[in-house]
């Protein structure tokens, strides 16, 4: 913090960053185009990428859109980097949370299957189609 920093915002020391309207409008246009693309990719099959191949394309496009919103609408590109550190750590912790949970999400499937196999007519009536 400069000792000469004024107590009122001035042109040299504005409060916050001013993102001009044309940048905001360009961001909106990019977001709408990406939304169209993410809908358009569902018109084609992406099974080469696995059963849920579309989900990876959708997530990449969604992340691009989220980055645009954060960088320009939320001024993150012009902010102090620490705000980005806060956001990215939150995202990392969500990913860690999901990844660790998914690691043993199927842990009880054998038990469930064994339970259903004991008396399928009673415990798994959905598998007993006529």
């Amino acid at each position, binding site marked *: *913090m400069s000792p*000469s*920093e*004024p*107590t*009122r*915002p*001035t042109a040299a*020391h*504005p*409060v*916050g960053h*001013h*993102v001009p*309207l044309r940048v*905001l409008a360009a961001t*909106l246009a990019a*977001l*709408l185009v990406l*939304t169209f693309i*993410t809908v358009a*990719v*569902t018109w084609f*099959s*992406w099974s080469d990428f696995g*059963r*849920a191949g*579309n*989900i990876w394309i*959708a*997530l990449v*496009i*969604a992340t691009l859109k*989220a980055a645009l*919103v*954060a960088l*320009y*609408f*939320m001024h993150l590109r012009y*902010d*102090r980097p620490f*705000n980005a550190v*806060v*956001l990215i*750590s*939150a*995202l990392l*912790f*969500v990913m860690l*949370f*999901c990844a660790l*949970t*998914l690691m043993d*999400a199927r842990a009880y*499937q054998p038990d469930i299957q064994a339970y259903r196999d004991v008396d399928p007519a009673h*415990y*798994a*009536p959905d598998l007993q*189609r*006529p």
Partner: protein
Amino acid sequence: MSTSRPADSSAGAPAPHLQHHFTSPAQQFESVVLGMWLFLATEILLFGGLFCAYAVYRANHPEIFEYAHVYLSKSLGAVNTAILLVSSFTMASAVWAAQQSRARLLRIMLALTIACGLGFLGIKYVEYKHKWHEGLLWGKLYRPQHEAAPFSAHHAFEHGQTPPAAPTSAPGDTDVSWVFTPGDTGPRGLLAPGDTTPLVSPEPKVHNVQLFFGVYFALTGLHAVHVLAGLVLLGWTLWRAALGHFSAAYFTPVAMVGLYWHVVDLIWIYLFPLLYLIH
């Protein structure tokens, strides 16, 4: 005023909104923004729990998601996405207008943002209402009206048999109590013995579809609550803007409500493809 603060001839008297524990409006604003980002991080973690539930259910039961997502309208979801994106743009423009001390533009942009938020909730209402009427709900409330209910209650009804008593519990994996009503005969309780008429949906049925709608309503419901809260905050901001509280010297509430509104948009950006665009 602290004596350690240097007198700056260009600065004049301290800004009226500057709290004494901050050195300058810029420092005060940056501190508020950091605090807001910390709050937004907790919001992302809050939704993270539900995204995790989505990931686990989808990993374990991909067929449910592939089956059930067709009951969501892709076009309504896309329109709502566009509405939220436009509202994010008007919100960012409102912040810019406040920074430029353009009071009228600020009010217009805030009003447009509120209109978009209301439009979003209106479309969400149409979607929820449709699902409510179709019985496409969570847990035990899942009673689809559009096809044969599990165990073909609908089928039995069509063939002139006694309509089943209203299910007291939903068709779950192990809960078949409502099928076996006293006095019924036949293996399924509702079908006569030896009736091998194909069911209305002869293809292998997907079970536990209520899982998808549970995840759908939890995620979009929590998001809708956030939109609602955002609308209240935007209304408050618009009211203060109308009173002329905001200018280049002080626009912190506009910027903070803006950050919140953008996070609501950010979450929808992920919800839309994850729920509506399953392929």
